[in-house]
């Protein structure tokens, strides 16, 4: 299967191309630069270097969130529009699941997280089985302190992975992966996870998984409740 994978859910930008299920090209940057400007040139470059023409693609896999709303939308819009134009399926992969894949040889619990401001994180719990990670606990938005306490209560070895590790180092301490590279999700992991997924819904219905309501909406709902 030929797959294009896209991740713009955090400051990490990733593009990967699989040919016949093998990694033909992969590019990762971790800089505070504009995804909207850089994503399309990156896709063109990786595709060209991998000698992959758009019409040869069988599927597009996109990090569907959680993460930066705008970032996720750039990846999802690009992925779904390409898929629609080419008449191929698009599949969403959790950006946390893709990050958890970096702990695929860790014996214990894997907790990837992305900073969500005000002491909160987008996070979830995964475990490795035979070199592949599976989800143990749903992705969620939670106060980081509360989450770390919850995970430690399980009394199992745990590995924390995060592109925002520096901001959260105190809480996770020695349980964070040592190699800095392991804190950046790889787009090839999105491609492999996306390859195994059943492309369920129509391309038109593919949308980000924000894991959080827009602020105006949650405030509005609150106001409605107070009125009742």
């Amino acid at each position, binding site marked *: 299967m030929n797959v294009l994978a896209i991740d713009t859910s955090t400051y990490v930008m990733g593009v990967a191309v699989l040919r016949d299920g093998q990694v033909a090209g992969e590019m990762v940057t971790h800089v505070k630069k504009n995804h909207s400007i850089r994503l399309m040139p990156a896709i063109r470059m990786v595709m060209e270097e991998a000698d992959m023409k758009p019409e040869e693609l069988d599927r597009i896999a996109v990090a569907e969130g959680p993460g930066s709303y705008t970032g996720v*939308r750039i990846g999802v819009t690009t992925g779904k529009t390409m898929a629609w134009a080419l008449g191929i399926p698009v599949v969403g992969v959790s950006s946390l699941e893709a990050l958890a894949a970096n702990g695929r040889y860790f014996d214990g619990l894997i907790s990837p997280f992305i900073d969500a401001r005000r002491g909160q994180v987008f996070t979830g719990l995964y475990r490795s089985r035979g070199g592949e990670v599976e989800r143990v606990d749903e992705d969620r938005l939670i106060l980081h302190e509360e989450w770390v306490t919850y995970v430690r209560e399980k009394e199992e070895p745990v590995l924390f992975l995060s592109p925002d590790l520096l901001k959260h180092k105190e809480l996770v301490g020695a349980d964070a992966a040592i190699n800095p590279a392991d804190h950046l999700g790889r787009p090839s992991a999105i491609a492999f996870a996306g390859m195994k997924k059943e492309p369920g819904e129509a391309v038109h219905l593919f949308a980000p998984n924000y894991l959080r309501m827009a602020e105006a909406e949650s405030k509005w709902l609150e106001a409605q409740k107070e009125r009742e």
Partner: protein
Amino acid sequence: MGDDGMKINEELMILGIETSCDETSASVVRGGREILSNVVSSQIESHKRFGGVVPEIASRHHVEQVTYIIEQALREAEVTMDDVDAVAVTEGPGLVGALLVGVNAAKALAFAKGKPLIGVHHIAGHIYANHLVEELTFPLLSLVVSGGHTELVLMDEHGKYEILGETRDDAVGEAYDKVARTIGLPYPGGPHMDRLAHEGEASIELPRAWLEADSFDFSFSGLKSSVITTLHNAKQRGEEIPEETIAASFQASVIDVLVTKTMRAVEKHGVERLVLAGGVAANKGLRARISEVCEERGLKMTIPPLALCTDNAAMIAAAGSVMYEKGQFADDRLNAQPGLELER
């Protein structure tokens, strides 16, 4: 006479995409002037409860709708992407998150199908809505009036814009919405104000901001404050001013300033055509007054039909067609530019 000699190929097929605010729209235009389809999905019902457009919610709607709207536009035009010569998209100005969806969809489409990409200025689009109605002739003056813009734009040829004047504070549509909110009308207030204005008498003398004698700039914040003060003072005296009277007096002041300044610019620059552009061009009072004055002076005039006054992708495709013929293409790095300038 007035024609700059640029010809748009009659068979040129442009797909336009517009997502700068709260409308997701796609359109196919042939030969720069013929609308084959113009699909507009408005989010207004979703934003009403917040009393205005919420940018994050607008962006969320755009990403959910964008490919569906594009497909619909191609289907209604009875063409496929293979028939399309280029993809034109609004690159700015507008809400950045909203613009980003259209820009990235257009880039993805252009890359996947190997089509040229064109970045269009939203206001250029509004002006070119007129080209879909009647062939533009030059020199022309455009009065651009919307929720975000109030500008007088001079054009000597296709695709070239000179801003003679613009608002120094509130855009005219913004002033309408704010006054509407003050007298308790639901969002969006402009159309309600227009309707009420026709039912009332402009019996309250409200100020007109003429600014410096030779200036083509506008200012509407003083007018808005004056309405608030007038209402407040009346209340203090235990009087009540009917909302129709407020609406009519406000509208009279706005139209007086817009029309007077426009006509002064027409004279100074010797233009031969006046075109109206932008959402507020749907205002019945303004349309009537401008038509009247142009008729008196024998000045050629175009006002787009209501559906082409508000945001739509046909106008983007029309402006994009001119850019196609001029060879003004964008590359993969095209980005959303919320503060994009018209004079480039």
